[in-house]
């Protein structure tokens, strides 16, 4: 069902955890679908210095969470905002169609975290 790359990120997820005193946190998901992702970020000079995730979800949900953290670490916020759920799926070599809609929310979580950061820091 899943590509090797998905299975790699699923079995050895990168950047699991929660950042203490994060600069931004994004939590997205739907309990009906069984996928909930929480992403926390540390920002220094508009660059994502650190990012961690916690996810309750299926293989695709965990793999996309892991992948998105790899993709954005060290990236400028502007670049990070360009990343879409499709970017993440592509980076994983594709996802089963049934998983595209619901379990592929990691980029949404990222954007929510950035928004959270901006809200807090643009006062």
């Amino acid at each position, binding site marked *: 069902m899943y590509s090797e790359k998905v299975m790699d990120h699923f079995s050895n997820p990168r950047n699991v955890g*929660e950042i203490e005193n994060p600069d931004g946190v994004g939590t997205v*998901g*739907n309990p009906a679908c069984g*996928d909930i992702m929480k992403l926390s970020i540390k920002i220094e000079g508009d660059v994502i210095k650190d990012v961690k995730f916690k996810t*309750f979800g299926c293989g695709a949900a965990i793999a996309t969470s892991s992948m998105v953290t790899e993709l954005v670490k060290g990236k400028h916020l502007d670049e990070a905002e360009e990343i879409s759920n499709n970017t993440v799926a592509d980076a994983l070599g594709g996802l089963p169609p049934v998983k595209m809609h619901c379990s592929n929310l990691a980029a949404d979580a990222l954007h*929510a975290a950035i928004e959270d950061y901006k809200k807090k820091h643009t006062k």
Partner: protein
Amino acid sequence: MKRIYFDNNATTPIHPEVFDAMLPYLKDEFGNPSSIHWAGRNTRKVIDEAREKVARLLNCDVGEIIFTSCGSEGDNLAIKGLVESKRDKGNHIITTKVEHPAVLTTCKYLAKTGFDVTFLDVDNQGMLDLDQLKKAITPKTILITIMFANNETGVIFPIEEIGRIAKEHNITFHTDAVQGVGKVPIDVKKLNIDLLTLSGHKLYAPKGVGAIYVKRGVRLVPLIHGGHQERNRRGGTENTAGIVALGKACEIAHRDMEQEIKHLTALRDRLEKGLMGKIPHARLNGHPKNRIPNTANISFEFAEGESILLNLDMKGIAASSGSACTSGTLEPSHVLVAMGVSMEASHSSVRFSLGRGNTVEDVDYVLEVLPPIVEKMRSMSPLYSAATGGAANISFTESGSCSH
């Protein structure tokens, strides 16, 4: 790698004796059972013998068995065939919310084409309320279709009582016994069953064959019109190899039933007790006693089902979450939802369905392997840290519906 198969409710391997029995009909004995020459002549006889074996397992007459291609065909034939033949008598059907899609989707379809369908609730142990059933009956009720045992939880319904109620009201009673046949004794006469569905690949016969029991006198409009096969009730050249296999599987089920019930109950209980003891926040879905002997459905809260399964698979253990047939969707199990299990707990459920080949070693291996898996998944779960950190809930942005 170790390979442990705990997904027998999804499908079973073919029993070696069954394989040997069917093999000749994939080789030299390939003729059409309707033919009079050497290639076909024998196959008519073996089909009749297989029919006898199925009938013996259910305690009915040979003439009351129709061979089908699977459980879903059987359910469709029994339900649509019956309501169509009784359409002039009424248009009301009673079923439950926890049926297999083969029954549920059929009933929903009928509901769109002029039939009234009552979908009965179950309680939080997956049990049926017989008073609710009695109250649902109207003068227009022509069919009660209620499963024998639930495929996800293993819960057994009060079939004998339902049969009695149906009989009292002169209503035809169909039971989808795909998960019951071969696992527990079923006597269709004693249970007052009018129509019963079974499927070969759930009792060590191959996929592609099934059967229904049709009580003498119950009339069905065929689902598959065609030749004279199955006494005009199911067209199509007979799948001789599959039918012979199903006969053999029923014979073996009959022969080994008592011993298998003991074997499976002991293993299942060991597995269940072990898991509940070793893993906190584990809860059993379904009635603790009233179950087929091979099934345990457990929610490991705060850890998601599919991710547990993938981890188990990496250790060679095959299990499932929800019904395999619905794995094309992400929606939580309709069975667990009907039982009032929360969305999160539904998505945390794993079904272990044991089979004849399983051993104590298999169970102990799972007991060793699973706790750290659940622990790992929980350590990654935002729900778990929230829950154990004292906060009962976390807030998040909802992301629309998950059906698509």
